[in-house]
């Protein structure tokens, strides 16, 4: 119990004093997570929308099963896979990305992409098909129809992005492996938590966990506000 109280005090102290090391770690956590989220959204959203709206997709069941399986990818396995690719003994060694934020972003994109895509498919698939016919009948082009459907499915699409964000900001197995938890270079909140736990600094580890939750809360608050602004609020 004492440790939990200590950690609360520690968390407040860390934030109140703008601890430079903590700010740097927070900055890197956001940088890696948001970059990975941006990439997976840019790829996953249109792909998921197309998949959800297309009338005939060859081997649809197979594609969907693959996507949903991707949601179950263990982060450590993703990390190991990316490590083997980027290792100096691996096929992509010329990138020289191992133990850099770029490697961490790559791993997180692999984790986030199935989530964004799969949940977008579900969101778009839930839109009444009659709506599409109506919009079409009003003379909309294919692109315009797609935009209307996406607007109708926005709640689900936002959930897709929020779920992916939550999965990767809290992820530790993959970023530890491919980032290496190097101080001042690839240390993020989750790997710092592992390090402090290993050191027996439980209060500090828990405090960092609280900081991570606070960040996630702010990010989700912004996301919801963004959703409200584009008209999700009834």
């Amino acid at each position, binding site marked *: 119990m004492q440790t939990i109280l200590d950690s609360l005090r520690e968390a407040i102290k860390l934030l109140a004093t703008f601890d430079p090391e903590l*700010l*740097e770690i927070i*900055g*890197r956590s*956001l*940088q*890696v997570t*948001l*970059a990975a989220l*941006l990439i997976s959204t840019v790829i996953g959203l249109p792909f998921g929308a197309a998949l959800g709206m297309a009338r005939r997709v060859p081997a649809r069941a197979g594609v969907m099963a693959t996507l949903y399986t991707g949601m179950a990818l263990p982060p450590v396995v993703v990390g190991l896979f990316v490590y083997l690719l980027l*290792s*100096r*003994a*691996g096929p992509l*060694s010329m990138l*020289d990305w*191992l*133990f850099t*934020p770029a490697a961490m972003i790559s791993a997180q994109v692999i984790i986030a992409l199935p989530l964004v895509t799969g949940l977008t498919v579900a969101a778009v698939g839930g839109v009444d098909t009659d709506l599409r016919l109506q919009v079409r009948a009003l003379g909309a082009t294919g692109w315009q129809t797609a935009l209307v459907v996406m607007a109708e499915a926005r709640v689900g699409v936002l959930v897709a992005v929020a779920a992916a964000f939550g999965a990767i900001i809290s992820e530790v197995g993959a970023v530890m492996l491919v980032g*290496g*938890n*190097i*101080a*001042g*270079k690839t240390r993020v909140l989750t790997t710092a938590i592992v*390090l402090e*736990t*290993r*050191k*027996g600094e*439980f209060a500090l580890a828990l405090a960092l966990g609280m900081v991570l939750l606070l960040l996630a809360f702010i*990010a989700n608050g*912004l996301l919801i*506000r*963004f959703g*409200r*602004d*584009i*008209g999700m609020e009834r």
Partner: protein
Amino acid sequence: MHATKISIQAFFSMALILLLASGLGACNVAPNERQTLRLATTTSTEDSGLLDAILPEFEAQYDARLEVIAVGTGQALALGEAGDADVLLVHAPALEAAFVADGHGTQRYDVMYNDFVIVGPRADPAGIRALVRAADALAAIAGAQAPWASRGDESGTYVKELSLWQAARVKPAAGAEWHYSLGQGMGATLQFANEVGAYTLTDRGTFLSQADHLPNLVILLGGESIDENPDPALYNPYGVIPVNPKKSEAINHELALRFSAWLTSVETQQRIADFGAEEFGQPLFHPNSEAWRSSQP
């Protein structure tokens, strides 16, 4: 109108966060054209705080940046074998010798040592407190079927544990109820032992640095300091190995050699000897390089 205004606000706040984040990231990458040296090491050297205490000196002296990857000894050796690290600091003599013999590393240099101890519940159900040899203690624990927490990974500590079981001529059957193979780090293993009242093998440094959180565990074999440790088999030497530059063109072999020379120099060895003496009442690591040994009367 109102809705669009807020939406622009939200958009800008999002953009600002992105910008801030990428900006912060860029700051870290841009300024240093300094050489970097990638050191793969075991968790014990980083978690004890030793590296934080001595490495800044090297970085300043050689205008270099050290990238420390702290992992288990097994993974550290694998990183070296793949050419993903320039230099290793590990503690598993048999594996290190094989690593150099197989041509993955150029040479191994003695750096320092500490020792392992057997910790367990104060009540000591297997009665190992009076024993001298760790192997006898393990045999007694197996005989009493008292709970034993094993690292069960490829760590240097686990390699040591296996050699002790071998010396005890006991082979804990997989799935034996008293034998817990955890596959976790030293800290987690100690916490497990503390919670379930198990015995375990640990390096003294990790135990000392976490003892505050381990109220149920005491050192039962190994004494209060390394000088009191009755069993030479519990000796835990660390070595530094520059990775063979033939592995990859990207390996900074020259700096790895300089690092090895620096780490084994008398000045650095003195800093290792001083580390932790104040906080724990005894040093966590004892210098042991060739240069250090020949400097001692």
